[in-house]
């Protein structure tokens, strides 16, 4: 009997301890107004090669300077943003201090005032606004750190075998010889909306979805790593993907893979789309604003942008970073288009309709 009581007590105590630890808030809590200088700094990043490149460049320099470690919350910007919405609604600390954003995510978070305006930390970040040719997506928030495009990546030997010329426009993806062997990004991915724009022929996003619905796809992928695996295995012969992934595949096997930024129909010969930019934004209510600003200094430095591009294929926004990149490897001179020759996605028009477009995409392709 006594043994049973002891066992019951131990079980109850262990369970209570487990419950209390589960209920405890994560990370260091700081008094309101005081800054956490110990870290770790939590950065939201895409994952895979993106995170590895951040670790090797900005995060390494940041940690060497401050002694503070960086932790990563990996996922598409929209996925991490969903966590920010949830914590904001509860009045809790955000899950990340710095977030990689894309145009729609930055727009949505900025509209909800969940990002720290640049004016609150610009004096702590060196060179943040220097030489950035593309306008900030959202006035008052972080400028772009890299610009990205949607490329058409293809299997060169297979195209030759099928008698297909090397692709030049997005319509080449619809060739009958490629039926059942093309992959396109799902609308839930960062590439999804720009791809719909790319094939819309300038007639609106719904027209783009209608056109995609006629395409006989092998897969509508949610992970570009998945797409790359399928292309390497020979399951797909052509795919729409982000330029970083496309150039990376070409670099890994230039005999097997080719990539281009195709012509966009209805755009007077311009290529693209210039899907947008990537940004790093500091999240509102972070207790590590100073550390986050220090991290931003590193992530926006030209050396970081050039090295990041070399590792991931994502083109820097800063012209001086582009010059640095080309000086290190001349192949980038052919890969980086002149801004005036490209078609940008109009995110201010697209973002308000994301929910409806997602619903329409699922209904027509599901």
């Amino acid at each position, binding site marked *: 009997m006594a043994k049973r009581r002891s066992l019951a007590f131990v079980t109850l105590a262990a*369970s209570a301890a487990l419950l209390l630890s589960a209920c405890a808030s994560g990370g260091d809590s700081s008094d309101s107004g005081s800054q956490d200088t110990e870290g770790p700094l939590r950065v939201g990043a895409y994952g895979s090669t993106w995170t590895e490149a951040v670790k090797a460049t900005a995060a390494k320099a940041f940690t060497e300077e401050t002694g503070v470690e960086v932790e990563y919350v990996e996922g598409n910007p929209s996925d991490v943003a969903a966590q920010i*919405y949830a914590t904001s609604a509860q009045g809790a600390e955000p899950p990340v201090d710095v977030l990689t954003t894309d145009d729609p995510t930055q727009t949505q978070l900025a509209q909800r005032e969940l990002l720290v305006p640049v004016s609150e930390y610009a004096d702590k970040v060196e060179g943040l606004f220097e030489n950035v040719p593309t306008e900030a997506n959202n006035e008052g928030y972080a400028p772009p750190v890299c610009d990205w495009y949607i490329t058409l990546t293809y299997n060169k030997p297979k195209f030759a075998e099928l008698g297909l010329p090397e692709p030049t426009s997005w319509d080449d993806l619809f060739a009958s010889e490629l039926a059942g062997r093309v992959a396109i990004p799902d609308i839930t991915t960062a590439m999804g909306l720009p791809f719909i724009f790319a094939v819309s022929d300038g007639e609106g996003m719904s027209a783009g979805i209608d056109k995609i619905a006629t395409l006989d796809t092998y897969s509508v992928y949610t992970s570009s790593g998945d797409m790359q695996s399928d292309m390497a295995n020979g399951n797909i012969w052509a795919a729409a993907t982000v330029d970083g992934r496309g150039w990376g595949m070409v670099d890994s096997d230039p005999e097997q893979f080719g990539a281009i930024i195709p012509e966009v129909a209805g755009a007077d010969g311009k290529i693209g789309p210039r899907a947008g930019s990537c940004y790093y934004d500091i999240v509102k209510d972070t207790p590590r604003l100073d550390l986050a600003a220090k991290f931003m200094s590193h992530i926006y430095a030209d050396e970081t942008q050039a090295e990041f591009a070399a590792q991931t294929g994502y083109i820097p926004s800063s012209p001086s970073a582009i010059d640095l990149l080309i000086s290190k490897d001349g192949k980038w001179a052919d890969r980086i288009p002149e801004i005036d020759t490209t078609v940008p996605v109009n995110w201010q028009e697209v973002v308000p309709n994301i929910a409806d477009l997602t619903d329409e995409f699922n209904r027509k392709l599901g």
Partner: protein
Amino acid sequence: MSSTRDTGIRAPRKPRNPFRVYLVPLFILQFATFLVPLVLFFRTAFFKNEGPGLVDYGHATLEYLGLIFVDPYFQQVVLDTIIFGLLVTVFTLLLGFPIAYCIARAGRFKESLLVIVIVTSFTSVIIKVLGWKILLGASGPINSILQVLGLVDEPLRLVNNLFGAVVGTVHAVLPLIVLLLVPVVERVPVQLEEAAAGLGARRLTTYWRVVLPASRIGLVSGGLVAFAYAMGSFTTPALLGGKTTLILPILIRQEAMTTVNYPMSAALSITLVVIVAIVTVIGLSVGNSRRARVRESK
């Protein structure tokens, strides 16, 4: 069954289980970390969505639940989810029961075979899915063999559709169901099979007409577990099912994480839970009535 009324003799009290107290922490944990968040989440289904992550708790509505009933798109998603669940259940039982039977009757090899089954479940779902993507791919080994043998001219579409999703999910849940069914088969007395053999029944006949009927209750329970697993399955159907396999778990995730429409996501979640609950109640009723008939026949 005798009662106090019939005989005037009070039935002896069942001895109290002294270990019931150890269930209390489990119930507290389940209540605090599962039931409460679930109820709070379900509550959002009855309020208006104000934008990404914003719910207007002052504006009650049945709009989202209503949409699921009246919109053909959502009706199709619900139907596809149920079909997916049923397919996984049927094929898991079709494959799992014979495996469980072989293991249960394997004599001294039983433990080794059980270890093999358990070890297969150590592999992460992602690794299994990647393996299936390679096997089932258009240029994968299965299609290559079929083309070399001249059985097909063009590769079969075995992945990024319902077929791929079912194959992957069956593979994922099979070890669990086999482990559940082995004791079910063990409860079927070997003497019954011997008696059937003595009466001239072949092995297949004995299996079909003796072992299977005797295991019906266990099969229902195993089927319910497989169905519940399939209905809640996300990773495998998302990666192997492609865009055409849009089932409730995938749509729930999309509504929560992409469009961040919590009320719609909650409404879909309630639908999923209700479907599983209804099927479970029906399955348990079938099992209980079968159990009652077996008791009466004794």
